[in-house]
């Protein structure tokens, strides 16, 4: 037998799983069953009858819902196949989803979160019966205090954006408590912070003011000072911003807010490269939040469940959504005093925290300790700057701002030159990357950087992974000059071919459910 040649840097033989599964409704077969629900005890049935004839007149459903009937094995096969057509972090080297901090999520943490002592507990159980989870929540609060310098955390918000909304609500409650609720109606953010830093405060009724970057990519300090006034309620910013540029003058920003009596709110979605390096408190923030599903690995779950752990300084604790978890030296308990007070914003979520997410974050922190978190930050930044260097060596890649200086957690590159030379857009490259089993993200909209490419290696990939990612990009950039049609028509080796997208924006044609599709396409 001859030696098989594996001497290649780009995996051209990749093909993503493509099962071409039907829609679940197409698997329907009259009479098949997936699972059988428990029946009431015979004696109960004898005593009370069929149960449903007690339903008041006019409220009984006259026809069963039109759900499909499918045998159990086929349901398992269907969803297992769909999972195989999903490029989770377990199956690809996560580098391409910049700003999302997609890192390795340890399996042991998931197993712990799925023990019955976690899954089979009700949120309204007596505190004496849930000491375990309360201890986890309290200790995770203590850890996050140390990591951020904030004085108290609430696990109420179940995502980063909900945490932003809660911070805006706290800003509102804070200013109302000082008799300035009506006059402070503006919130300042930056164009390179997450769109939710603008959108969620707007839901709370705020007028939004955007600060543009200066020539170095820092939020324009002069423009910021000009925008700050007695109308300002708060300032919402990520640091580093989505460009990966760390705002070196952050203290001047938070100081400016103090001078005008407004609050500084830190979106720590990009905190991964800063763990153990620098904290929200020293930078002058009053509030901050961590995405436990990002920085603390819990993982992303296709987009939640998640937690936006929200920390504040002492002077804002009374406004937090609750209950908060306290320890009296003997037992852990839910402190309802704050949430029931007139100051608190009340609640943003039905039950406290997304318990399994908090548990996984706890376990992750415990597996690393302070030294490990420091290593996470150092390696994430090492990986990012290593990749930054490799990519900037390429003729078609550039990155605006602070030339020659380091970036923190990710970099927003531009491949404008590639576009100008070949007509290949960042979206074209994105689709082609899928032919090699890799994610690639451009940017939020609108694009402030031309033909953007936002990459974030985190601490999880190896040097070889990063090299392979860069080699793959190089390969595609070369294709752009030699065979642009191959890229324009990509993907070729993914789960499906290019979408016809027009219908998705046309009310007469869009189909958000199968029944709607059947109606709109019937002949």
């Amino acid at each position, binding site marked *: 037998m001859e030696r098989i040649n594996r001497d290649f840097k780009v995996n051209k033989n990749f093909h993503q799983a493509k099962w071409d599964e039907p829609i679940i409704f197409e698997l329907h077969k009259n009479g098949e069953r997936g699972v059988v629900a428990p029946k009431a005890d015979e004696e109960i049935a004898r005593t009370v009858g069929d149960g449903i004839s007690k339903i008041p007149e006019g409220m009984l459903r006259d026809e069963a819902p039109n759900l499909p009937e499918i045998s159990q094995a086929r349901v398992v096969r269907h969803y297992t196949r769909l999972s195989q057509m*999903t490029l989770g972090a377990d199956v690809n080297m996560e580098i391409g989803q910049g700003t999302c901090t997609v890192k390795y999520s340890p399996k042991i943490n998931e197993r712990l979160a799925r023990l019955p002592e976690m899954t089979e507990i009700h949120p309204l159980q007596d505190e004496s019966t849930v000491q375990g989870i309360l201890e986890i929540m309290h200790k995770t609060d203590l850890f996050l205090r140390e990591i951020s310098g904030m004085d108290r955390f609430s696990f109420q918000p179940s995502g980063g954006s909900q945490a932003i909304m809660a911070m805006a609500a706290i800003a509102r409650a804070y200013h109302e408590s000082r008799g300035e609720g009506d006059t402070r109606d503006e919130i300042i953010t930056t164009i390179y912070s997450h769109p939710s830093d603008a959108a969620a405060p707007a839901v709370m009724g705020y007028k939004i003011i955007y600060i543009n970057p200066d020539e170095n990519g820092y939020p324009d300090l002069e423009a910021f000072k000009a925008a700050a006034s007695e109308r300002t309620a708060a300032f919402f910013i990520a640091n580093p911003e989505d460009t990966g540029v760390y705002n070196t003058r952050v203290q001047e920003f938070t100081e400016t807010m103090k001078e005008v009596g407004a609050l500084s709110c830190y979106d720590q979605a990009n905190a991964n490269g800063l763990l153990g390096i620098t904290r929200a408190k020293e930078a002058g923030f009053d509030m901050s939040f961590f995405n436990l599903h990002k920085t603390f690995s819990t993982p992303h779950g296709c987009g939640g469940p998640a937690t936006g752990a929200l920390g504040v300084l002492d002077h804002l604790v009374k406004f937090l959504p609750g209950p908060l978890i306290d320890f009296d030296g003997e037992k852990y308990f839910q402190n309802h005093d704050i949430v029931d007070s007139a100051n608190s914003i009340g609640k943003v979520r039905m039950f406290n925290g997304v318990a399994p997410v908090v548990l996984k974050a706890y376990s992750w922190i415990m597996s690393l300790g302070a030294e490990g978190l420091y290593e996470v930050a150092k390696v994430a930044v090492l990986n990012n700057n290593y990749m930054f260097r490799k990519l900037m060596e390429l003729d078609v890649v550039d990155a605006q701002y602070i030339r020659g200086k380091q970036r923190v957690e990710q970099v927003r590159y531009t491949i404008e030159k590639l576009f100008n030379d070949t007509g290949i857009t960042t979206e074209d490259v994105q689709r082609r990357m899928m032919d090699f089993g890799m994610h690639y993200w451009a940017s939020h909209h609108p694009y402030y950087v031309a033909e953007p490419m936002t990459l974030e290696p985190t601490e999880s990939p190896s040097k070889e992974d990063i090299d392979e990612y860069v080699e793959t990009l190089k390969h595609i950039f070369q294709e752009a000059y030699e065979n642009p049609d191959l890229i324009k028509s990509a993907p070729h080796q993914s789960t499906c071919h290019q979408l016809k997208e027009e219908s998705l924006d046309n009310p007469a044609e869009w189909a958000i459910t199968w029944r709607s599709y059947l109606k709109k396409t019937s002949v």
Partner: protein
Amino acid sequence: MKLKGFKSHPYIPNSVPDVQNEMLKEIGLADLEELHSEIPEEIKLKKNMDLPKPIVSEYELERHVKEIIKKNKTCEDNINFLGGGCWQHHVPAICDEINSRGEFLTAYGGEPYNDLGRFQALFEYQSLVAELVDMDVVNVPTMDGAQAAATALRMAGRITGRTEVLVPALMDRDKFKIVNNYCKSALKLIEVDYDKKTGQLDLEDLKRKANENTAAVFFENPSFMGFIEEGGQEISDIAHEAGALSVVCVDPSSLGVIKPPSHYGADIVAGELQPLGMHMNYGGGQAGFTATRDEEKFVMEFPSRLFGITSTIENGEYGFGDVAYDRTSFGHHRHEGKEYVGTQTALWGITAGVYLALMGPVGMVELGQTIMQNVQYAIAKIDEIDDVKASAFDSTSFKEFVVDFNKTGRTVEEINGKLMEKGIFGGKDLSKDFPQMGQAALYCVTEIHTKSDIDKLADALKACL
């Protein structure tokens, strides 16, 4: 002082010193300390953080965490009658199997190509819930049922251009707080009274309060107190006569047997998905859905992502994508998009789809029927106890009901304490949130309760009163 790192950590491949040195060299640095050069010195930490010593071995970590969480006492080892927004239902093994798949568990914001499975599974979830509520549009799920209700009301506010919503006085107080916080800048919540005997919404009070400022009449079916709100159509009619929308929060586990709100005039339906295949998870299994008719004026007001089906350039191939993406805050309009969108509860959406695919129409009918039989039996058994009234309201319950302990001279707290000694978690104490009801508790019975569970409860109650 040089801070300490953690070399050769199993989760960090490039924590190996040789590799680090090689990479540092490539970028022209000599030491990891030279990274983070952009962070001002005065705000850099000068020593390692004060955190517990790491637990390096996986085995010891497992022991450590288990030791803590084993302090929890579960609803498997006890008999649980708590509900009130999170309910104990059977979770089919396949729900856990699918949401444990690493591909789903660790995916995030990929594109419709490399994440086709995620898009299809969520499109199917939307489609399956659509059948349950008999409406054409369902969203990718939001944080929980309360958030879904809050968003439904903001949508109604924008659609009608009005500033007030009418809500039932018997609404869960926590849900009220969430909705109020979320809607405050645009909508005022006004409570509508209820009939003291039946708990049903007071239609005369509703008529008095519905006017040209009313954006929506909001009610829950079953109500927070567990009974079926019988006047669905009349309530919707009153809303519509005032030019308002009818917004209904529903328990999806009831929809095999109880009419969906779209059949009695609801314009927007919201609800909590947790009963459909999510463990209670100490309240971590919550996820909210919102549904409407397929009309542009509704669809364009959703803040959530809506995954649609579409064709591809290849004959016979399904594709999926975001419908009207630009209406969201992820689109070009940022804060001028509809509310905000972000990471919510997609994995629970996929799981709810799996649940409905498994249950099918027959399963959902059986589920509803078993629950109602068990509840009626439980009410009858508890009502036999001297001085105890079940249910406090003279209406038909679905899976929850209020037990009135006022005549017993005992507080719910005392009673629940006694029950706990016998391995029973008694119902939610309502005395604080609804003082007008005195010592009353909200009990939840579902398909997981056996006759023996219910009998034990009744016996234990008798014994402790």
